[in-house]
């Protein structure tokens, strides 16, 4: 039993020491990525200079995307059954003369017989003298009006807003640009709960680990602004509230793109100017979007570690359904003499309790969290190459053991004595827009159902359809 403790301790330190924050895996090398778009079950993003990245699962990325026109910093939006691709022709020329162009394609898959870009159409220009540089487009299809808006511009003066025709991708006749921000770049718009949010990148790019890129936001009730930050400062005065900045070795995030997967599950696509783990290359990043007090902020890609898995329903913790083992310390009565030396009491150890547990399948409960061994879960990146948008699948084992969480064919959740890597033992973890998490098995055996770990009662975990509007579907990961 001492050996188990040692292994557990060593495992913890190995994890702790080696834990790095990965943006994405494969060859996710890109600069100024377009908002990640899904097409026929695959994910696509296009970058500066042409070309782009493709992913089958949203976690492992490789080259192969085709975006003609060169230039820089494209964006993509699906409108109806077509994709509108927008890009800056110059990538920012030294004389700040530029043009924004749009083109359509029925598919983003270059291997599809339908893959054919329409001829690009110029929708905005900068003449080299005006206080604007026509690059870095970002688009929003207003969900309330169906109108298509585009912002563009860089640090050279103003970010501007124009309106496009969502049927043609051309500029709306008679539309005049509106200045909405100053000294920022890579802007885009998001609509939520009656607010228009203008997200843009401040700081400097293209200097590797010295780049100071960061994404800020202001909001307005009108699409034309003014976009004010959390202290009431207009983005036309340089205002902006931080959305995402450098985190660990991932330096200089920029070029925010908003991805709504479903109610309560939103992601942002960005690039980091430098990933120190990948030689300082510019890489694609995907992070959860959390909305806090009406403002978007980057959530966290799930971090490996040992946690209490707390049900948001009541606040109980997920635990093995085993006998509760009392600690070998009697309560001290109030009337007893109190002049004995104060000595620490060791915490209950796994070895103290697991000898009495069944060796086969053990069911799960949700109970009062008592910081006991049957309530602590070690979650690590599974030895599996697959993932989902923004993350890998995880294995969830009882801390200090190989006993793994697994989905069953009848949509229940159990633990099995040893992790085998079977898909029902792989778990997807998404941070939700309210900051809590959802936990989904990769598969339910013999079923195509998409289910999540939920609390069917305060003490009963099961698998059921995810419902963002119910705390039954939400979990927190606590480190104590």
């Amino acid at each position, binding site marked *: 039993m001492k050996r188990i403790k040692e292994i557990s301790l060593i495992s913890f330190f190995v994890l702790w020491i080696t834990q790095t924050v990965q943006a994405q895996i494969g060859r996710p090398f890109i600069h100024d990525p377009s908002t990640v778009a899904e097409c026929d079950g695959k994910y696509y993003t296009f970058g500066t200079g042409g070309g782009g990245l493709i992913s089958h699962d949203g976690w492992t990325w490789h080259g192969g995307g085709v975006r003609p026109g*060169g230039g820089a910093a494209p964006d993509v939006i699906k409108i109806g059954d077509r994709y509108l691709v927008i890009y800056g022709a110059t990538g*920012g020329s030294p004389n700040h003369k*530029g043009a924004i162009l749009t083109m359509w394609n029925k598919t983003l898959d270059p291997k599809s017989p339908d893959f054919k870009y329409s*001829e690009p159409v110029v929708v905005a220009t900068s003449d080299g003298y005006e206080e604007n540089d026509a690059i870095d487009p970002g688009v929003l299809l207003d969900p309330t009006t169906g109108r298509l808006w585009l912002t563009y511009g860089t640090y050279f003066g103003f970010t501007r807003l124009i309106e496009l025709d969502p049927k043609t991708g051309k500029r709306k006749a008679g539309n005049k640009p509106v200045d909405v921000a100053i000294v920022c770049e890579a802007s885009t718009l998001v609509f939520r709960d009656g607010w228009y949010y203008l997200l843009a990148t401040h700081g400097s790019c293209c200097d590797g680990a010295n780049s100071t890129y960061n994404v800020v936001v202001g909001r307005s009730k009108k699409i034309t602004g003014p976009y004010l930050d959390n202290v009431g400062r207009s983005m036309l005065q340089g205002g902006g509230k931080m959305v995402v900045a450098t985190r660990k070795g991932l330096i200089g995030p920029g070029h925010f793109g908003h991805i709504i997967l479903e109610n309560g599950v939103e992601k942002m696509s960005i690039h980091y100017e430098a990933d120190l783990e990948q030689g300082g290359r510019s890489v694609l990043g995907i992070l959860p979007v959390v909305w806090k007090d009406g403002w978007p902020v980057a959530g966290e890609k799930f971090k490996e570690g040992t946690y209490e898995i707390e049900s948001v329903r009541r606040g109980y913790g997920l635990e093995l359904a085993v006998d509760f083992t009392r600690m070998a310390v009697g309560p001290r009565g109030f009337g007893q003499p109190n002049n004995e030396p104060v000595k620490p009491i060791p915490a209950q150890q796994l070895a103290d309790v697991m000898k009495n547990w069944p060796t086969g399948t053990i069911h799960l409960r949700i109970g009062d969290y008592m910081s006991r061994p049957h309530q602590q879960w070690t979650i690590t990146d599974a030895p599996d190459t697959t993932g989902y948008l923004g993350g890998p699948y995880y294995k969830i084992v009882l801390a200090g053991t190989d006993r793994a969480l697994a989905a069953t064919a009848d949509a229940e959740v159990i633990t099995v004595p040893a992790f085998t890597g079977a898909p029902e033992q792989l778990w997807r973890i998404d941070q939700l827009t309210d900051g809590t998490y959802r936990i989904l098995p990769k598969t339910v055996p013999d079923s195509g159902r998409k289910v999540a770990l939920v609390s069917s009662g305060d003490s009963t975990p099961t698998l059921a359809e995810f419902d963002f509007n119910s705390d039954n579907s939400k979990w927190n990961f606590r480190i104590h």
Partner: protein
Amino acid sequence: MDRNHKYVLPILSFIVLAGLQISSFTAFAQGPGPGQRLPLPPIPLKSDTTHTLSQHFTPASAAQKAPDANGFIQRWLVLEPVKKDIVRNNIFTDNYLKTAFSADNFSGDYTTIPKNGETVRVGTQELKWYALDSKAFNFNLYHFTYAINKPKYGILVWLVTVIDCPEEIKNVRMAAGCNSGSLWWLNGQEALLLSGDRDMIADNGTSARLTLKKGKNIIRGVVINGPGMANFCVRFLDEKGSPVKNFRIRYE
């Protein structure tokens, strides 16, 4: 800000591709191929591009001027730029700025008030003062240097303005934003240093609490910038963070 390197690769690509240019704008059946760049379409000029101050500034008049509705000081004596060789703005450390501002200085007396139109010597350069009102809340030095047909990038620009207060105002803070580095003095005392690769953001930095004297107060500033659009904005904030507007601005 310094993003010029962002464009190095596209520019190189353009040069290479321009040499290999194989098709015209209209010849691409489905747009140009990967990595190919369209020549820019004709882009008409949208405004007057002559080198004139009147597009963004007006000559400061003898009459005193109020700050704008948000308290920003739009009237400044601006010295023609001192040319500097600056590749990147992230070299603007505190030490770099203090050394550069000390070396390329027109006067060590930080209460001196230059005269509109006079020239001073900084190093080997003979530079002229302009008394101007910005039409915007900020004072865009890129526009200024373009207007007087002087270097727009890699510049150091000295600034002076005078504000008259009808009464003493205590516990105010000078608030400034600049692209990219700057140093500010009030009545000869150093008040605020903005170092690093900064954007021109209102209230990006604030001084310690200051007192504006009854009568004349002299603000001296200096902005330095490499690539990008040199720019600044200055105002005073009271203890609640509200703009101070109870003063008048002049340049003499």
